[in-house]
C-alpha cells in the first residue's frame, strides 16, 4: 500500500481524509502514484498536473522522506520507504504570497 497525503483543498474536493492508502503497481514512480490517485478520484485530474501535458502544476510540490522530489523525473523510482508504505508521498501546495 502506498500512502499519499493531499493538501486540504484537494481533500475537500475529493471528499477524502488527508492521508490515503492504495495499491500502485511497481516500480513505484510519481507518474504511477498520480495515475492511480486520479483513477480513484477523477475529480483530481487537472488539479495536480496538467490534463494534456501531465506536467506538475507550477505551485504544486512533491515531498517524501524529507526530500523535495518535485523536479525529479516522473518516471524515476520513488524512495523504497514510499514504495513500501513506510513513508507517505506528500502533495503540497507551494508557499506563495505573504
Amino acid at each position, binding site marked *: 500500500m502506498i500512502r499519499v497525503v493531499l493538501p486540504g*483543498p484537494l481533500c*475537500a474536493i475529493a471528499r477524502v481524509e488527508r492521508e490515503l492508502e492504495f495499491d500502485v503497481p511497481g516500480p513505484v514512480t510519481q507518474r504511477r502514484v498520480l495515475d492511480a490517485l486520479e483513477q480513484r478520484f477523477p*475529480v483530481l485530474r*487537472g488539479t*495536480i498536473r496538467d490534463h494534456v501535458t501531465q506536467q506538475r*502544476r507550477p*505551485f504544486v510540490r512533491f515531498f517524501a522522506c524529507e526530500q523535495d522530489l518535485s523536479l525529479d523525473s516522473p518516471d524515476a523510482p520513488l524512495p523504497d520507504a514510499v514504495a513500501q508504505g513506510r513513508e507517505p508521498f506528500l502533495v503540497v501546495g507551494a508557499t*506563495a504570497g505573504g
Partner: protein
Amino acid sequence: MSGVRVLVGTRKGAFIFTSDGKRTKWEISGPHFPGWEIYHVKGSPLNPDRIYASQCSGWFGQLIQRSDDGGKTWEPVGNQFTYDGVPGTHQWYDGTPHPWEFKRVWHLEPSRTDAEAVYAGVEDAALFHSTDGGTSWQELSGLRGHGSGPKWAPGAGGMCLHTIMQDPSNPQRMYIAISAAGAFRTDDGGKTWTPINRGLNSNYIPDPNAEVGHCVHHLAMHPSRPSTLFMQKHWDVMRSDNAGDLWTEVSGNLPTDFGFVIDVHAHEPETIYVVPIKSDAEHYVHEGKLRVYRSRTGGNEWEALTRGLPQENCYVNVLRDAMAVDALDKCGVYFGTTGGQVYASNDAGDSWTAIAEHLPAVLSVEVQTLP
C-alpha cells in the same frame, strides 16, 4: 413569483442568498467551496435548480461545480479546457507575442434553449461549449480563428472572455466581450464571429479605427430589445442600436465614465445602471461615495442613487460581473463590492440595503427569479 436567489462568487468561496418576493429578509448559505476563488455562479434559465460555479485556485487550477438542487449540494463536473489546435500567440502587455495559456473560467452562461448546454468564457480568451451539463467542453474556436487573435492583449485582470449574451429572439446570435480585444458577434451559433467595435475610441490604441484591442468591461441587453446593447468600456459608457455594428457614447453627466458593471432594468429597456469608478489607476468609487447611477433615457442623463449606500470614506470597487437584476415588480437590483458588501434594492435602485457586509471580495453577482 415567489422569490429570488442571489448567487455570489467571492475570492474565497460562494454564497447564496434567498428571499421571498418582498426581498427584505434574507437567508444566507455558504461559504461553498471555502478558500477557492469563485469567479462566477449562474443558474439555468430553463431549470432554476441547475446552477454552475467556476471554482479556481492559483495552486490547483480550475474546477466546474454543478448543482441540481438549487445550490444545496454540488458535484464537480468536467474541468478540461483544451484549446482547439495550436493555440498560437496573443500580444503581451509590452506588445510582444505571448503563448495562449488557459488560466481560469471567468463566466458561465447556461443556454436559453437547451437545459444541458452551457458556455464558458475563459482566460486566456476563448469560448467553450458543453452540451452535457459541463461534463465535457469543446472550444468554439471560430472566435480565436477570426484572425485578430494575435492582436488581442490582456487587460489588468488578464486576457479574459468575461461576457456572454444570447439573443433570446435568435438562437444563432450571440455576443461576447474580451478584455482587451473588444466585443464580437456570431450569427451562426458560434461558428464564425465578427468584431463589433466600430465607434469605440481608446486612447491607448494609436489607430482610431482599430478593429480590436478595446478593453470592453461588460455588455448588457434587455431581452425585449436584443439589438440594443449597452457597454461599460474601460472608459466610456456606450450603446448600440444595431446589434453592435456602431456604438455611440452615452456617458453624459456621469462624474467619471470609467467602471466595470452595466445592467438593464428588467421591465424598462431604456433604464440602465452603472457604478462609476474614479479611474483606471484608482479602482475605487469617486469621491469616497458609493453611488449607483441610473439612466431612464438609455444613457446620457444620469441620476445618482445613494439612499442606503455609504457616502463617505468608501473606497471599494464593483467588478464587471458583480451586478444583476431580478424580474420581480418592482425590479430588484443587486451588486457586490471588493470590500465584501452585497447591496440589494427592491425598488429599482431608489433605496439599498446591505444584505451582507463582511464577505471576501465579491467577484460576481447573479440572481434567479424563482417561480
